[in-house]
């Protein structure tokens, strides 16, 4: 069961990635990339990494891709060739991918109620994960937090340097 699901989800991830890198419109590319991330998150779950799967959706699909979308819309990068009438052919691949992902989710829930049975031979529970992360890798966690702080300061500086002088003083 997990093996079949793995191959289906791999096909969805690869197809969504292929559609993503070939789009002209960045908004469409971001939407397809979100599909690829959802498929990848379910693959992570099947490989015994439930916490990583949750963070894949929360951080990648939820935060980073929304940031991309925000920048695309703020800078008006998407081409606005709005034709009268809806072009329904655009929706077919995205609907197919979404339907496949939804069916895979239901299959996981239906064949594995409670997430206890049918797990792969290796399964890192959040407790194991947290112990390893904050005991063996405590120094690395500190370093990564510094990295995030420096990135925030750098992003603030770059965003500030772009303003014209005195534009915000008036």
């Amino acid at each position: 069961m997990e093996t079949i699901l793995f191959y289906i989800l791999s096909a969805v991830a690869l197809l969504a990635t292929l559609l993503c890198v070939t789009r002209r419109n960045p908004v469409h590319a971001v939407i397809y990339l979100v599909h690829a991330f959802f498929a990848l998150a379910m693959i992570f779950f099947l490989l015994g990494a439930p916490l990583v799967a949750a963070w894949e959706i929360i951080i990648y699909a939820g935060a980073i891709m929304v940031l991309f979308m925000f920048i695309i819309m703020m800078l008006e990068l998407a081409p606005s060739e709005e034709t009268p009438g809806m072009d329904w052919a655009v929706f077919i691949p995205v609907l197919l991918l979404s339907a496949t992902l939804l069916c895979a989710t239901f299959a996981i829930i239906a064949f594995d109620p409670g997430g206890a049975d049918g797990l792969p031979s290796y399964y890192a529970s959040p407790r194991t994960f947290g112990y390893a992360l904050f005991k063996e890798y405590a120094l690395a966690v500190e370093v990564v937090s510094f990295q995030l702080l420096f990135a925030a300061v750098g992003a603030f500086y770059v965003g500030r340097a772009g303003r014209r002088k005195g534009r915000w003083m008036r």
Partner: protein
Amino acid sequence: MIVPISHIIMVATAMFLMGLGCVMARRNLIMILIGVEIMLNAVGLILVGGSALWQKVDGQIFVIFLMAMTAAEVGISLAMVVYLQRRKGTISANAFDEMSG
């Protein structure tokens, strides 16, 4: 392991190559960043596969560090995209070639 590790590596390699092609071929800065995201996710898939293969949690922990690094990278690079757009009015990579040397 639910599948052989070689299949996981094949899927991740295909994904990485698509991201690499996106970075090399596209001229839009946003699409280049999306290609980098795809490549980093392929690396994450390899790490989780290795974690499942060797029955250790370390691979998954490295995926978390990878996500933190990605968040930092995306924050800075999107700020730079906004800066470059303000400066030149375009985000085509061809517009920023003064340092050719």
